[in-house]
């Protein structure tokens, strides 16, 4: 076997020079500099957090208000009239906060369903062949999304719901009564007896009762979020190529069938991420319930804060609750997003 020839002593013009490349100083080294920069930024962020936390703890200690959670066990002392879970004034603060949270979730859930239905219908209507319907949809969206939600809630509550008649003059239909104090619906009462709404001592009573405060909040949230969702839906439908419409109509499908079977399913992948944002906004906006006397988490927290003086703790509870709620909605919507994406084959 021939011996391996020695390496060519003359370097080819393309290969690296024989002398190893001069090592750049460390402050110009691509492998070191990013790490140093990140370490410095990270350190600064940590320092800032440490400073803020230290500041908080120092000031709270000085004011004699170090974080404590014992107040959660003390009796709340105030009543909540519209609690889904049983509650009375002798129960501890954490039960009051839980009752408030359940009320918030109730408003958010019903609001989500209502706003989605309304938004989808209005979004579809903006592609209708009927010019009046199309224009109505535009007017609704433009009017509603340009007026602050708080103002709309106050409008629904004071101008619409509180002008309903009361007592005997209430709007009475078989099994349903709409009065100034709320909506009363027949259902199975005590002992599983069927009970309609009855007027007892000037106050309507029925197995199912929805207060006007809940009604005003819900109407406000649905109408407001519905306008934004309508825009999201309209954008999603507009994103489906025109050829799909033409192909469907050449097959003889009606307008509605085209929308339902061809266009909407394809537009979902554009709509769902946009919906996510609207749903999260709705959940956060529900805290405006205080303006219309609906006892939600924020309202209970405010009273709790006032009675106990534990401002930092109560705000932490609030932050955690709304963050969890929004992250949950986000996670569910991301799951839905995965389902409606095109499967690449």
């Amino acid at each position, binding site marked *: 076997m021939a011996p391996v020839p020695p390496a060519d002593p003359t370097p080819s013009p393309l290969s690296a020079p024989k002398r190893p490349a001069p090592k750049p100083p460390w402050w110009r080294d691509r492998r070191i500099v990013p790490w140093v920069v990140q370490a410095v930024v990270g350190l600064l962020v940590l320092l800032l957090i440490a400073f803020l936390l230290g500041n908080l703890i120092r000031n709270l200690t000085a004011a004699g208000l170090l974080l404590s959670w014992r107040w959660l066990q003390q009796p709340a*002392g105030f*009543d909540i009239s519209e609690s889904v879970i049983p509650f009375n004034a002798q129960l501890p603060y954490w039960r009051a906060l839980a009752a408030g949270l359940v009320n918030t979730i109730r408003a958010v859930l019903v609001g989500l369903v209502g706003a989605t239905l309304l938004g989808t219908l209005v979004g579809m209507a903006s592609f209708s062949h009927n010019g009046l319907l199309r224009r109505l949809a535009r007017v609704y969206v433009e009017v509603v999304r340009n007026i602050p939600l708080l103002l709309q809630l106050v409008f629904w509550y004071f101008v619409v719901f509180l002008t309903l008649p009361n007592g005997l003059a209430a709007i009475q239909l078989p099994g349903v009564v709409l009065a100034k104090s709320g909506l009363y619906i027949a259902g199975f009462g005590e002992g599983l007896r069927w009970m309609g709404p009855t007027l007892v*001592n000037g106050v309507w009573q029925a197995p199912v009762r929805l207060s006007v405060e809940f009604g005003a909040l819900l109407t406000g949230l649905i109408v407001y979020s519905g306008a934004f969702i309508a825009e999201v839906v309209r954008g999603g439908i507009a994103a489906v190529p025109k050829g799909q419409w033409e192909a469907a109509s050449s097959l003889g499908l009606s307008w509605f069938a085209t929308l339902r079977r061809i266009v909407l399913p394809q537009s979902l992948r554009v709509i769902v991420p946009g919906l996510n944002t609207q749903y999260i906004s709705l959940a956060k906006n529900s805290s405006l319930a205080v303006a219309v006397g609906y006892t939600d988490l924020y309202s209970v927290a405010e009273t709790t804060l006032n009675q106990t003086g534990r401002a930092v703790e109560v705000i932490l509870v609030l932050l955690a609750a709304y963050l969890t709620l929004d992250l949950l909605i986000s996670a569910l919507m991301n799951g839905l997003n995965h389902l409606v994406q095109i499967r690449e084959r």
Partner: protein
Amino acid sequence: MSRAGLLGLALVGALVGCAAGNGDPGSPTMAKIRERGRLVCAVDGAVPGFSTVGPGGAFVGIDADFCRAVAAAVLGDPTKVEFRPVTAGERFVALSSGEVDLLSISSTHTLSRDAPGGNALSFGPVFFYDGQGVMVPAASGIRRLQDLAGKPICVESGTNTELNLADRMRELGITYQPLRFQSGEQAYPAYEQGRCAAITSDSSLLAAKRSGFKEPAAHGLLPELLSKEPSAKVTVQADPAWADAVRWVTHTLVQSEESGLTQANVEARRAAAKKDTSQAEQRRFLGIEGDFGRQLGLPADFTVQVVKAVGNYGELFERHLGSATPLGLERGLNRLWSRGGLHIAPPFR
């Protein structure tokens, strides 16, 4: 450093030490007020007689005038007040965060609000003796609390009245529907529109709000009171010197009524007392004898400034709440101790 410099420092140190002992109490809040040149005073802003925005755009009412009295005492000028309207729910946070210097809002003095382990606030002497009342439409036929069984009752959330209502209804064994509103701006319109069978708050506030109704005569107060509500001016516990200054401004208002000093005559009385050395009590109160103002960290004549700015307690009451006003409140418990009421000022000495 030279020896002379060290000596000078030591001297200054000794002087400062002395000053801390019996001179300027060194209140951080008062230092802040003097530095910015005005008092930041929290008021409700929507209660006729107590604090509302008047026709000229200025705040009027007994609570607003108290802010002016404090500004007159500290800065010598009752106009140097920045009014900050806050809701019942946010008032204590606004105060403990240093957002405002003083709460001049009907705030009932309670143990948990006062205690260091509670809200850690500092309450002045009672400024207004009140009780929680219940207002109902006169035509409703509701004559006592028991008549409210099962009915909706409007209440401001985050207030003492909310707790008193729950307590009393529990004692009576009555179920009711509390309708909790964040502020009076929502609670009273909701009541006026007939959403609630009754609304509850301090009686004086109910009377004040009623004076703004479309038909004030169509609403009446139940004879029953749910609680005693002695309300006071509030500062933070962390600055006791400031709390003392505010406390003695309240005492000044009461003492000046007792001494017969009014907005109109205080200057003349002071001039007279200056000449007449026999008026010992008057001379002390008006800052001619002794150094009581300085002990509080206030000017020597702070009492004169207060009375000149807003008048005495009786004048304040009659101007904003009394029979000549739309509120038409009786003085009742708010009379001086010498006339069968509860207001008494400790001696200025």
